[in-house]
């Protein structure tokens, strides 16, 4: 919520480099409480490279690539009726670290159904599949950086890590902004979920403020009466500098 209150007036135009990634905002690669990270984390330091065109450009997506129902998880896999569970709208703003809206960002989401079961051939959980729920969607942000999709609130589920670990209800988010350096995958949680306190995946993040940033808040102002509750989840991608006094990225050396 801190991001909402921040009064930042950034210059509108920028197509320069992205601000250095603040690694203290993220989990380390090796986080032993999340056991799978032990053998999948590089042991060498990442090699920091000055950005080039390869990092400040990124694929551009257009609305005609998406289907009309891609952002409506209640209807996009409905076969015989509506999926079971709590009808839920999720919305928010995607901005960069200087507070600018990230327009036309591709927001891709995926989640378990109300039983905590994923429609995935590798998910063996006892929770029932819902014949009318696929569990994925995608939208583009508008000119204000705003996105919205509609879904069924996911259920919590157990997973193999320690003997009795449970994931809090969550929605996975993939974000593709203006630059390759902004690419991000994260997870959104629901305020008040007691499972967040012990979740080994949340606990990979060493910073409580950053964990709070992943919690969506009930947004009564955006609910649809007699229909759906709404949750607000704002996302911040890496900030982009303006290119005053320089043409380093692709020009002649100064």
């Amino acid at each position, binding site marked *: 919520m801190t991001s909402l209150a921040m009064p930042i007036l950034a210059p509108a135009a920028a197509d320069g480099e992205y601000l250095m990634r603040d690694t203290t905002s993220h989990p380390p690669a090796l986080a032993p409480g999340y056991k799978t990270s032990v053998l999948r984390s590089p042991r060498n330091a990442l090699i920091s*490279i000055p950005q080039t065109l390869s990092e400040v450009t990124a694929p551009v997506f257009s609305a005609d690539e998406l289907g009309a129902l891609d952002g409506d998880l209640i209807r996009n896999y409905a076969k015989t009726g509506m999926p079971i569970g709590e009808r839920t709208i999720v919305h928010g703003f995607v901005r960069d670290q200087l507070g600018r809206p990230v327009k036309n960002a591709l927001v891709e989401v995926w989640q378990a159904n109300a039983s905590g079961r994923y429609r995935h051939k590798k*998910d063996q959980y006892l929770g029932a599949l819902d014949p009318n729920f696929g569990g994925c969607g995608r939208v583009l942000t508008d000119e204000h950086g705003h996105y919205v999709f509609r879904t069924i609130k996911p259920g919590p589920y157990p997973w193999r890590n320690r003997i009795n670990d449970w994931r809090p209800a969550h929605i996975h988010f993939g974000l593709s902004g203006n630059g390759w350096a902004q690419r991000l*995958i994260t997870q959104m949680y629901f305020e008040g979920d007691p499972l967040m306190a012990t979740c080994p995946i949340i606990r*990979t993040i060493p910073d409580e403020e950053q964990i709070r940033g992943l919690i969506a808040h009930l947004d009564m102002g955006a609910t649809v009466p007699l229909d759906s509750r709404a949750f607000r989840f704002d996302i*911040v991608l890496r900030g982009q500098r303006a290119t005053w006094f320089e043409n380093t*990225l692709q020009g002649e050396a100064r």
Partner: protein
Amino acid sequence: MIPLLRETASQTAGPYVHIGLAPKAAGFDIFENNFGHVLATPETQGERITIEGRVFDGSDTLVRDVLLEIWQANAVGRYAHAADRQPGKQVDPSFRGWGRACTDFETGVWSFETVKPGVVAGRGGVPMAPHVNLWIVARGINVGLNTRLYFDDEAQANAADPVLNLIEWEERRKTLIARREQRGGNAVYKFDIRLQGEGETVFFDV
């Protein structure tokens, strides 16, 4: 000090990343238009190539639930993005330069069908050898890993590449060089990724 917003914390893509980013791989069909591993269309200009490889963990075990994306310039070395203003290089309208692939759940092999990229101007106009940018996410990877693929038949350009030359350990530069093979009439570049341990791939903080 003027405050900056903090970037939203990364979280692992998890074991079911395919549902959201590649639902057909998860075992179902939901979107009319799927983002996939074929970048080159019949109209695309340039040499057709296949890029393929596997991913290994720190115990040398195949990792079979990875999702990879690539981002590359077209055959003349131009990115399909407004920030690329290199003079004299045109966008190819039939090539976006972006693709997404999953490792096969059985064989662990991933692949892309694309064209070989051209030379792109680096910082200060210093040319960068042809390369493909890769981004790797999976269960157990807390922050997506960035790396680059270079081509073994570009030895001269690679030797002068300003990014490869930033890697202090010459031996480690080799982890970014794909090997060209001929398969039937097709050029295939093999590129295995090692997340940890001996021969660990160089990953970048970009």
